[in-house]
C-alpha cells in the first residue's frame, strides 16, 4: 500500500500543527464556536448530540495492520473502547475531548493517517472498490488514482469552500462495489478501442433528499488528463453551483437544472483552456504510486484449493461462512475474506478496540498485513490463502467476528441516527438490531439470499436507504419515530433509486412489515431469483397488497 514520502509526512504534520493552533485559539476564547465551526469541520470534527465526534480518513478504505492497531489504541485512549466504521470507508470516534484532539491527530500522523477533509464543503475522502487489487474483474487498481486524487484535493486552495460537500469514488472493476454512480464524481477505469487505459467520468449522482444517478460527461479521459479534467469539473461547479439553498447546492442539482449537455459543454470549454498544462499527470508519478500497490509475494497454489474443499465438507458452520463471506481472488490459491461487523443484535459498523487489535494480528498472520474497510461497514482481509481460511475463521469466531452474513438480510447499512446525530429524525441502530435478531436464523438468511437493507435516520440518507433493495427512512411524525419503506434500489452498476411503497410504519410495526415483505418475496420468487430480481419482475403490487390490504 501507499507509504508517505517526506513531502506527505511534512504536509500532514504541518496540518496537525495548524489544527492544534486553531483548537488553542478556541479553548482560549479567541475564536467563538461560530468561527471555530468551519475550521473544525475541515478537519472532521463534528459537534454531535452529546459530544464531539472525530471522523478519521481511511483513504480508499485501505489500512495496514499497524494503522488498525493505532485505531484500536485511539479507541481505548481517547474514546470509550470502540470505533464506528462508516459508509465512506472511514472510522468515527464518538467521544473524544476537544482539548485532546490535536494529540489524537499527532498519533494518527505517526502511522500516516489524518482527518483532513472528512467533513466540510470540500472534496472528501476518496473511496474505491474494497476489492481493489485483488478482484478478478479489474482492469487496474483504482487506489493508484484515488491516491493521486487524495493528494491533489488535499487543501486545494480553490476548492475548499465549495457550494457543498463533494464525494468522489473510483473503481477499476466491471462489477461496481463502490456505489460509484451515486457520487458527485464517479470514475470507472476503462480500456478504449486502442487498448489504452483511462477513465469514464460520471457526474451528478448522489443521495440525500434528491437522489440521482450520475450521468456520463466523458466516456474516456486519458490518464495524463485526469487532474485537469477533474479541475475543470470542480471549477464549473465552484462557479455555477447554487449557493442560495444548501439543499440545492450539490453538483447533481446543477447538472439537473442546466442539463447534462450544457454542463458537459461548460466542462469541456474549461478543460480546453487548462489541458496540456501544469496539471498534466506525469507518467513517472503514476508509476511511482503504482509501485506501492504492487501485488504481494503470493505463494504457489499447491494444495490450497483441495484443502479448503475438504475443510468445507467436514465443517458445515465453516462452509456457511465461506459461502457467504469468502470471495474469489484473482490469484489461484487465494481468497478474499470478508469480516462482518453485523453480528446478531450488534451496531452495524462498530468494532471494539480488542476486535481491531485482533483483526490487525490476523492481517499480519494471514493477509500480508493489509485490511480494507467497505462502504457496507464491514472489514476485509484481501489476501488469504485458501488453506488458511479455516484457522482464520476460528480466530475470527473467537472475537465474535465470524458472522456468515455478507450481503444477506442482516448485513444492514445503518447511519448513526438519533442515538448520536443532531440531524436525525429517528433512530436507525435499534431498527437494525431488531431486524438482525428477527432474521437471526442463518439457514433462513441463506435461503433468502442476497438482500441489501439500508437504514437512514433522516432524509440526508447517510444510511444509503435510496439504494437499498429495501430502504428504510426514519421520519418524525408529531414527535414519534416512523419509518418509510422503499423497494427496488440498487447501488451497483445497475444503480437505481428505490420507490416508496406506501405510508410509513411506526417503530413497533416496521420489523413486522419487513418480514412480511421478505415472506412475500419467498412466496413469489422463481428459482434462482434474488429479491431485487423478483421485485423487478413483479413490481410493488404483491408487496403493497400484503402490507396495506387490511387497512
Amino acid at each position, binding site marked *: 500500500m501507499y507509504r508517505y514520502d517526506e*513531502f506527505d509526512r511534512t504536509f500532514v504534520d504541518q496540518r496537525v500543527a495548524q489544527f492544534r493552533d486553531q483548537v488553542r485559539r478556541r479553548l482560549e476564547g479567541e475564536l467563538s464556536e461560530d468561527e471555530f465551526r468551519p475550521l473544525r469541520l475541515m478537519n472532521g470534527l463534528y459537534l454531535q448530540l452529546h459530544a464531539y465526534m472525530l471522523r478519521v480518513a481511511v483513504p480508499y478504505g485501505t489500512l495496514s495492520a499497524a494503522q488498525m492497531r493505532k485505531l484500536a489504541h485511539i479507541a481505548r485512549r481517547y474514546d470509550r473502547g470502540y470505533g464506528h466504521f462508516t459508509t465512506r470507508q472511514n472510522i468515527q470516534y464518538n467521544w473524544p475531548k476537544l482539548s485532546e484532539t490535536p494529540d489524537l491527530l499527532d498519533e494518527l500522523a505517526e502511522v500516516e493517517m489524518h482527518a483532513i477533509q472528512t467533513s466540510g464543503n470540500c472534496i472528501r475522502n476518496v473511496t474505491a472498490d474494497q476489492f481493489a487489487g485483488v478482484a478478478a474483474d479489474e482492469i487496474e487498481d483504482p487506489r493508484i488514482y484515488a491516491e493521486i486524487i487524495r493528494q491533489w484535493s488535499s*487543501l486545494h486552495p480553490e476548492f475548499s469552500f465549495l457550494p457543498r460537500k463533494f464525494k468522489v469514488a473510483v473503481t477499476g472493476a466491471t462489477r461496481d462495489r463502490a456505489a460509484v454512480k451515486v457520487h458527485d464524481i464517479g470514475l470507472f477505469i476503462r480500456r478504449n478501442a486502442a487498448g489504452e487505459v483511462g477513465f469514464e467520468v460520471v457526474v451528478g449522482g448522489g443521495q440525500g433528499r434528491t437522489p440521482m444517478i450520475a450521468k456520463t460527461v466523458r466516456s474516456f479521459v486519458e490518464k495524463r488528463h485526469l487532474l485537469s479534467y477533474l479541475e475543470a469539473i470542480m471549477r464549473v461547479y465552484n462557479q455555477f453551483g447554487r449557493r442560495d439553498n444548501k439543499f440545492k447546492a450539490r453538483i447533481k442539482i446543477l447538472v439537473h437544472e442546466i442539463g447534462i449537455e450544457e454542463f458537459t459543454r461548460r466542462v469541456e470549454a474549461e478543460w480546453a483552456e487548462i489541458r496540456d498544462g501544469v496539471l498534466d499527470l506525469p507518467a513517472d508519478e503514476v508509476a511511482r504510486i503504482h509501485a506501492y500497490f504492487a501485488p504481494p509475494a503470493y505463494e504457489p497454489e499447491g494444495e490450497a484449493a483441495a484443502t479448503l474443499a475438504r475443510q468445507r465438507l467436514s465443517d458445515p458452520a465453516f462452509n456457511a461462512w465461506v459461502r457467504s463471506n469468502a470471495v474469489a481472488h484473482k490469484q489461484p490459491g487465494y481468497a478474499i475474506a470478508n469480516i462482518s461487523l453485523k453480528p446478531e443484535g450488534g451496531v452495524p459498523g462498530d468494532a471494539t478496540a480488542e476486535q481491531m487489535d485482533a483483526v490487525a494480528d490476523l492481517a499480519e498472520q494471514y493477509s500480508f498485513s493489509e485490511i480494507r474497510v467497505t462502504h457496507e461497514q464491514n472489514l476485509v482481509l484481501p489476501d488469504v490463502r485458501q488453506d488458511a481460511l479455516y484457522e482464520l475463521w476460528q480466530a475470527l469466531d473467537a472475537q465474535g467476528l465470524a458472522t456468515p452474513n455478507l450481503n444477506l438480510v442482516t448485513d444492514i447499512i445503518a447511519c448513526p441516527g438519533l442515538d448520536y446525530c443532531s440531524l436525525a429524525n429517528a433512530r436507525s441502530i435499534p431498527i437494525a438490531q431488531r431486524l438482525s435478531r428477527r432474521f437471526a436464523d442463518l439457514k433462513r438468511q441463506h435461503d433468502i439470499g442476497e438482500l441489501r437493507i439500508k437504514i437512514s435516520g433522516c432524509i440526508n440518507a447517510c444510511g444509503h436507504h435510496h439504494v437499498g433493495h429495501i430502504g428504510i427512512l426514519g421520519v418524525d411524525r408529531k414527535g414519534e419515530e416512523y419509518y418509510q419503506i422503499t423497494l427496488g434500489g440498487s447501488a451497483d452498476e445497475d444503480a437505481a433509486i428505490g420507490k416508496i411503497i406506501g405510508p410509513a410504519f411506526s417503530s413497533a410495526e416496521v420489523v413486522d412489515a419487513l418480514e412480511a415483505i421478505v415472506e412475500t418475496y419467498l412466496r413469489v420468487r422463481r428459482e434462482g431469483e434474488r429479491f431485487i430480481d423478483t421485485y423487478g419482475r413483479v413490481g410493488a403490487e404483491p408487496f403493497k397488497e400484503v402490507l396495506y390490504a387490511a387497512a
Partner: protein
Amino acid sequence: MPLLKDGRLVEDPWVPLADEDPVPKDGPVLVSLARWQAEREILRVRPAPVGVRLASDDSAEALADDLADVALVAVDFPAFADGRGYSTARLLRERYGFTGELRAVGNILRDQYLFLARCGFDAFEVSDARAPEAWRAAMAEFHNFYQPAADGYASIIALRHRRVAAAE
C-alpha cells in the same frame, strides 16, 4: 478599513465609488463592474488609476479584455463560505494574466489567507490590527503544496520529479 498588503498594514489610497457618486477629477477610484462597463471610455482616460469591484457572482471573463486599463480588481466575499472568488482570482491571474493588485474584500477569515494568497490575492481588507501577525503565521504553516496554483509554487509532484531528475 485597513488594508493588508504583502503582509503589512497600509493606507488604502483607493476611493470606493457608489454607482451614483460623481467621479472625482483625480485620485484612484474603485467602481462596480456595471459602472465600469457603462463608463469605461470616460474612466479609461482619467489621469488616475481605476479599480473594479467584482461581486461574487461576477465572472472574471467579464473583465478579461479590459485588464490592461485596470490597476486593481477587488473581489467580494459576501460570506467566508462563498468560495467563488477563489476561482475568479485564479482565472484573472492565470488565464487573463492580470498583474495588478488583487484584493479580497468582505467576509474573510485569517485561516483563509493561505488559500487566498495561493489563488493570487495580494491584498486583503481586514478589521483586525493583529492581521500582519496572523498573516505571517498563515504563510509559514505549510512548506509545500500538492497543487499548482496562481502563486507559482512548484507542486509536490513537480518537486518529486525534479529530485528524481537531479539524482539521475
